[in-house]
Structure formats: structure tokens, C-alpha cells
């Protein structure tokens, strides 16, 4: 800036000098001289504040040029929270990308529109209108049903200056947190139920024994107490197993295992239960040994958990089939059932700890929601993979693939 002023002044001086030289002896010479002095004085008046300003305050060339840093829009779009600003006339001024994702709308289409045109949620609409009208700040939690259902926490705050400027809305997605809370409550409820039932049974039998019964009855009751105790121990072992698996402290006791024989044994152990429920249980395994390197007990637990899960969700006259076969240098174990199936929305979650697909449907014989989580950890600890396919009302297939030699993950 100072350079430009200096160059400008120099140019004017040169022009005046040329004029004066040209006008030597001319009557206008004095007039031109006076005009040149006036211009110099005016320039001095404008230059003085600039020249008096400390150097540090003068804008540098770099700052005078347009900035190439992030704009406010970039910053807003990078925020994880939804930010919406609504002007006093009810039109949207700011609608960032996170808000667009939470409400399932294209953020770019929002500016200049009203909130109800873009986000059809009557509770949000009422809250924003109230804030615009009354100037109240409030935080609420609401459910938004778009293409996906989300639980959102919404804070509305008035933007005030000398006049009402509008409303600021901050939105955070609480869906996952609420799901986890619900899972935790479900788990505590299931574990309490699973423990309370055998404990109640044990208590009753102990009280009966204390009141005095004959020898035959004593033996029966003691056998039942032992069975119920085993059941509670198994539950606690599952919990501890899962804790160990998740912390990476599980040690595999590896040996050469005939998977075909193991599958036949697992199916045989479940046959009485399947027969009692009138479910057709089939094992399709070759008589030729199929050897892999694995932890025999853990692999048996995988098969038991998968069969237990299939029998739990299958009805009378339905089928459960366990198939084991070599495929592409690996061993594939499939447990297929023709039972109630799993909704596509639940499929991504079924291997999560504590997850129970449909508590209402499984009422009376629900598990703890740990079985499949344990299966996944064990299979992955062996370097294998597990996947599930399902169709509601038609049944499910759980497919495990294990390497023949151990490949630890």
C-alpha cells in the first residue's frame, strides 16, 4: 500500500514537472504550480495516518491477499454435532452436514427453506417455534423416524442482539448410547433371570430336604440341585470366557482335531432336546476324518452354541442341519435352520455381546446374548471367519470357515 502511494506521488510530481517545463514563460505556469501544491497537500493529509501507524499494525501483503484457509462452512461441516441456525423469519441460514445426516436430508437444499419443509418432525418444529417466540433455552430428546430411526438430543437457544436474530439448534445423536443402555438393561435382566430361576429351585429343594424326605426323594433332589448348580456355573463360565476373549487373554490348547467326529458328537448331545421339541436335527459329516489344528474344547463350545441358538429359534417340525466339509483348502461348518429367521436390521448386531434378537419372541427360553459373541471370538482366535445369512420367517444359516493349520489373527 505504501509503495503504491509513493509511486503515485512520484508519477504526479513528474507530470507536474513536465507541465511546468512546458509552460515556461506561460501565464498558466503559476496556476499549475498552485494546483500541484494543493495535490501534494491532499496526499500528505491521507498519507500521514498511514505513515504514523506502527509497523506491526500495518497489513502485510500476505494478509491483504485472499485467505486460502478453511472457511466457516468447512468448519461447520467438520463438526460431529448437527448445527442449524434459523433466522427470525423462520428460514434456515445454516444447516451443516452432520444435521443433514442425522435428519436424512441433503444439507445443501436447506438454506432459505423453513425447518418443517426440510425436517418433518413435529416435536422439533414446536420446540423451535417456542424458542423463537418465547426466547427459552431447552434441551429435549426426541425420536426422528426417517429412512433410519434415530434418538436425538436437541438443544434450542435464542440468538439475541438488540433484536431477535433467530434460533440456534444443536443436535447430537444418542441412538447408539440408548441402544447400549437398552442392551445392558436387557443383559442384567436376562442374567438375573437365568440365575434366579435355578437359585429359586435350589432353595425350594433345600428347604424340602431340611423338612425331611425319604431316601429316594433325597437322591432325586440332590441330583437336581447338582444339575442346577452346573447350569449356574456354566453361565458364570460363559461370562468369564467372554471377558477373557475380549481382553485377548484366551489361551488355545491346540491339538489335531477330527472336525467331522466333533460335529457328530455335538449333534448327538443335542438330539434329546431336539427330539423333545419335535425338531428334525441332521448332521451331514463325512465318515472320512477331517483334521485341523484347533482347541478341541473351544471348538466343541462353538458347535454347541450354534446348535443351541438354532434349536432355540426353531419350531416343531422344522429342520436344523449341521454340515461340515472341506472347501478351498479350508473347513466350512454350516448350521442351517428353517426357523423364525432374523430381521435384516438385527443381522449386523447378532455377534455383539448381550444382543438378543427378539426378547418378546424368545420369552421363556432366552439366553444371555453371549453365545454368538463367544463363537465369533473363538473362531477369530483360530484365524477363521463367521457369517450369518437369514430371512425373516424362513430361517438362518451360520457359516464358519476355519483354516486347516492355525493362522492366528
Amino acid at each position, binding site marked *: 500500500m505504501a509503495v503504491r502511494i509513493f509511486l503515485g506521488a512520484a508519477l504526479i510530481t513528474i507530470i507536474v514537472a513536465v507541465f511546468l517545463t512546458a509552460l515556461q514563460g506561460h501565464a498558466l505556469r503559476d496556476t499549475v504550480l498552485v494546483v500541484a501544491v494543493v495535490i501534494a497537500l491532499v496526499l500528505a493529509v491521507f498519507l500521514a495516518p498511514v505513515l504514523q501507524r506502527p509497523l506491526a499494525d500495518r497489513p502485510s501483503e500476505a494478509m491483504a491477499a485472499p485467505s486460502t484457509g478453511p472457511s466457516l462452512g468447512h468448519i461447520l461441516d467438520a463438526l460431529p454435532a448437527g448445527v442449524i441456525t434459523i433466522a427470525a423469519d423462520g428460514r434456515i441460514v445454516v444447516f451443516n452436514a452432520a444435521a443433514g445426516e442425522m435428519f436424512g436430508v441433503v444439507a445443501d437444499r436447506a438454506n432459505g427453506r423453513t425447518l*418443517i419443509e*426440510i425436517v*418433518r*418432525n*413435529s416435536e422439533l418444529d414446536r420446540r423451535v417455534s417456542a424458542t423463537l417466540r418465547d426466547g427459552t433455552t431447552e434441551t429435549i430428546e426426541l425420536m426422528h423416524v*426417517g429412512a433410519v430411526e434415530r434418538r436425538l438430543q436437541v438443544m434450542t437457544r435464542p440468538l439475541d442482539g438488540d433484536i431477535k436474530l433467530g434460533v440456534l439448534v444443536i443436535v447430537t445423536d444418542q441412538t447408539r448410547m440408548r441402544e447400549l443402555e437398552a442392551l445392558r438393561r436387557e443383559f442384567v435382566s436376562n442374567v438375573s433371570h437365568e440365575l434366579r430361576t435355578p437359585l429359586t429351585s435350589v432353595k425350594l429343594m433345600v428347604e424340602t430336604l431340611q423338612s425331611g424326605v425319604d431316601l429316594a426323594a433325597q437322591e432325586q433332589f440332590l441330583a437336581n440341585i447338582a444339575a442346577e448348580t452346573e447350569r449356574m456355573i456354566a453361565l458364570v463360565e460363559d461370562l468369564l470366557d467372554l471377558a477373557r476373549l475380549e481382553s485377548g487373554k484366551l489361551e488355545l490348547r491346540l491339538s489335531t482335531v477330527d472336525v467331522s467326529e466333533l460335529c457328530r458328537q455335538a449333534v448327538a448331545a443335542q438330539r434329546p432336546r431336539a427330539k423333545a421339541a419335535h425338531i428334525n436335527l441332521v448332521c451331514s459329516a463325512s465318515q472320512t476324518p477331517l483334521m485341523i489344528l484347533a482347541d478341541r474344547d473351544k471348538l466343541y463350545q462353538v458347535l454347541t452354541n450354534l446348535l443351541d441358538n438354532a434349536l432355540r429359534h426353531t419350531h416343531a417340525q422344522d429342520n436344523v442341519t449341521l454340515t461340515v466339509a472341506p472347501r478351498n483348502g479350508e473347513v466350512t461348518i454350516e448350521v442351517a435352520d428353517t426357523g423364525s429367521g432374523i430381521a435384516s436390521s438385527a443381522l449386523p448386531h447378532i455377534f455383539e455381546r448381550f444382543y438378543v434378537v*427378539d426378547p*418378546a*419372541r424368545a420369552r421363556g427360553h432366552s439366553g444371555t446374548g453371549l453365545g454368538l459373541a463367544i463363537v465369533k471370538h473363538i473362531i477369530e482366535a483360530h484365524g477363521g471367519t463367521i457369517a450369518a445369512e437369514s430371512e*425373516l420367517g424362513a430361517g438362518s444359516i451360520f457359516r464358519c470357515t476355519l483354516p486347516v493349520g492355525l493362522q492366528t489373527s
Partner: protein
Amino acid sequence: MGRENFHRILDETQQNVLRMGSLVEEAITRAVDALSRSDVKLADEILRADDYIDDLNVLIETNCLNLLALQQPMASDLRTIAAMLDIIIDLERIGDHACDIAQITKNLANEPQLKPLIDIPLMAAKAREMLRESLDAFSHHDAEIAHAVPQKDDEVDRLYRKVFAELIQFMAKDAKAIGRASNLLLVALYLERIADHATNICERVVYMVEGVPRKLKRSVVEFDQVLAHSDEIMQSGPGSVDQPAGGQARS
């Protein structure tokens, strides 16, 4: 009333149609949720909330009639007002169906579930999706979205036939299940009707944007024939227009 005021009221009325739409969408979700969980308290809330939907209906209708009477709107403004008068009828009926489902929830509250609800929530999700997209089409004056929505009605109809067949089987096997099964049949019917109402809304949006009334589940060729032979049809009754080659029959 100046022209600026006219556009302000027209704009506010469109906002109110969207408000009514959002209330109705939420009512469907909550009604099926209440049915799945046998939640009588939620069912009562839905029944109470219907009054607000009805109030909005009256407000919108009044505003529309005032605009027609006092402003003599033309062209797209006239079509918008005419479309809104039709759309709120469909929305009001959808709200009533949500209330009917809530009432069935109360009727079945003390009875064991006949079977876990699988297809009915799927029907509800599909019908709600159709309604949401039809209101998107209205909000954005987008005929392209409006044309696409009715194609999804076939899926709702398919689910309805499946639920119908399954519930008839229940009733045939067990006479004690007739009461519960017939109530669930009504729920499925209401959801199928909600999907049809969403199609109706799309037809009004197409009229609003394109200026020509259309039945979206019939081919354009077939409908133009209806318009061309309207006098003949009025005199002769149903079946008086030949199906053109390649035309789609109404499902």
C-alpha cells in the same frame, strides 16, 4: 389482501400441510409400535393427538377457501391450493387409520399375542416410507419423486395378501383365534389403505407441478383415452374404453 400477503398465507398454509403430514407420519409409527408392544398408554396418546391433526385440517381448509374466495388465484397457485385441499383429506384419513390401529391395540391388550408381528411392521415401514416420500415431493414440488412413489405400492399389496392368507389359516385352524386374527386383518387393511392414500397424494403433487391430472398406477396413454372419451364413459358406465395395446391394467 395484497399480493404479498396472499403469498405469505399460501406459504404458511403449505407449511401447515407439512406439519399435518409429520404428525400423521409419527402417528403411524407410534400406532404400530403400540400394537407390537401392547402399549395401551401409547395407544391413548395417539387417540388424543388426533384432535390436533383434525384442528390443523380445519385451519388449512379454511385458509385455502379464503384464498380461493378472496384472491382468485390462477395457474400454479390455483393448482397448489386445489392440491392442498385434496391432500389434507388423505392425511386426515391416514390419521384416522392410525387411531383405528391404536384402538385395536386397546381391544387386544388383555389377550395373548396370536403370533410375533413380522409382516405388519414391514407393511407399516413401507407405507410410512411412501407417505414420507410423497410429502417430500409436495415440499419440493418434485414430480419426479411423485411418479416414483406409487411403484412401491405393489410391495405393500403383496405383504397384505401374505398377511391375509396367514391370518385366514389361523382362523381356520382355531376358532378361538378368530377375534384376534380379524383385528390384525383390519390393521393390515388400514396399512394397505395408508399406502393408497400416499399414492393419492403423489397424484395431487403431479397435478400441482405438471398441470394435468393423472392416475399414477395407470399408463398415460390409457388415461388420455379416458379424457378423450369422457362423454361416452359417463353415458355407458364401466368397461366402455378399450385397453390400448401395451397399456397397463389398473392393479
